[in-house]
C-alpha cells in the first residue's frame, strides 16, 4: 500500500502545490499591474 499512497501523494500533492503557486503568482501580478497602471508618468507631474 505504501507505493499506492506515495504515487497518489506525489501526483496530487505536486499538482496542488503548483496550483497554489500559480494562483498567488497571478494574484501578485494582477495587483502589480493595477499599481503600475495608476502610477503617474512625467506628463502627470506638475
Amino acid at each position, binding site marked *: 500500500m505504501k507505493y499506492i499512497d506515495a504515487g497518489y501523494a506525489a501526483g496530487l500533492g*505536486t499538482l496542488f502545490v503548483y496550483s497554489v503557486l500559480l494562483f498567488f503568482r*497571478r494574484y501578485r501580478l494582477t495587483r502589480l499591474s493595477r499599481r503600475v497602471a495608476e502610477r503617474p508618468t512625467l506628463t502627470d507631474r506638475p
Partner: protein
Amino acid sequence: MTTLMEAPARTISVGREVPRPWSRRTVWAVRGIGMAALVSIGLTVWLGLWITPPDKVQGNLVRLVYVHPPIAWVALYMSFGTAFVASLLWLWKRTRSAYWDRLAGAAMEVSVVFTALTLVTGSIWGRPTWGVWWAWDARLTSTAMLLVMELGYVAIRKIPSDTDARARRCAVAALVTAVDVPIVHFSVIWWHTLHQGATVLNANLSPTIHGAMAWTLLLGFVAFSLAFVWMLAMRMRIETLSDALEGASLDLALDERRAEGGGDS
C-alpha cells in the same frame, strides 16, 4: 531632479498598457473549471482507492492506473499538444500573433510539471512491479528525453531578447521537441519494453479495461484534463501580465532617464 522626484503627483490612470482584468464571465468560467477539476479529482481518488476492485494480476497496485495514465495523457497530448499547435500557429504568417507565443509558453511550463510527474508516478509504480525504480526502457527513456527537451524550451524562453526573436526560437524548439512525442507513444509497439502496451489508445482502439475500473479511469482522464485547463488559464494570465509589466517597466525606466536628462525629449 529632487524636486521632480518629490513633486506631488496625481494618481490618475495614465494609459500605460496593462491588460484589462478578466471579465466577470471569464472569472466565473475559470472558477467553474477549477471547482469541477477539484470535485472530479476527489471522486477519482475515492473510486480509485476504495470502490474499484483489485486487479487479478497486479492486486491493489492497479490503483495507480487512475493517476499515472491520466497525468501522462495531459503531459503528452493535452499540454504538449497545445504548445505544439500554438507554436505552429505562431510560425504560420497568416495566424502569427503574440497570443500564440504566450499560449505555447504557458502550455509548455504546465507540460514540464506533468511530464515530470509522469516519470515520478511511473517510477513509484515500477518499483513494486518491476523491482526497480528506473530502467533504460524505450518508453521511460523517451519520456525522460521529452522532459529534458521541454526544460530546454523553458530555458530558451528565459534568454533575454526581443519578443519576436524569442517567439521564433521557442516555436522552433517546440517543433524539434515534437519529434519525440510519436517516439514516446509508439515506443511500446516498436520495441520490446518493460512498460506495458497501451490500455486505452491501443492499435485496435478497443480498451482492455472494463466496468468500474474503466469508468474510474475515464473519470481520471476528464479530471486531470480539467485541472490542466484551469492551470493553463492561470499560467496564460501570468504570461500576459508579466509581458505587459515588462513593457511598462521599460516605459517607466525611459521616463526616469528622460527626467534625469532634463525631460526635454
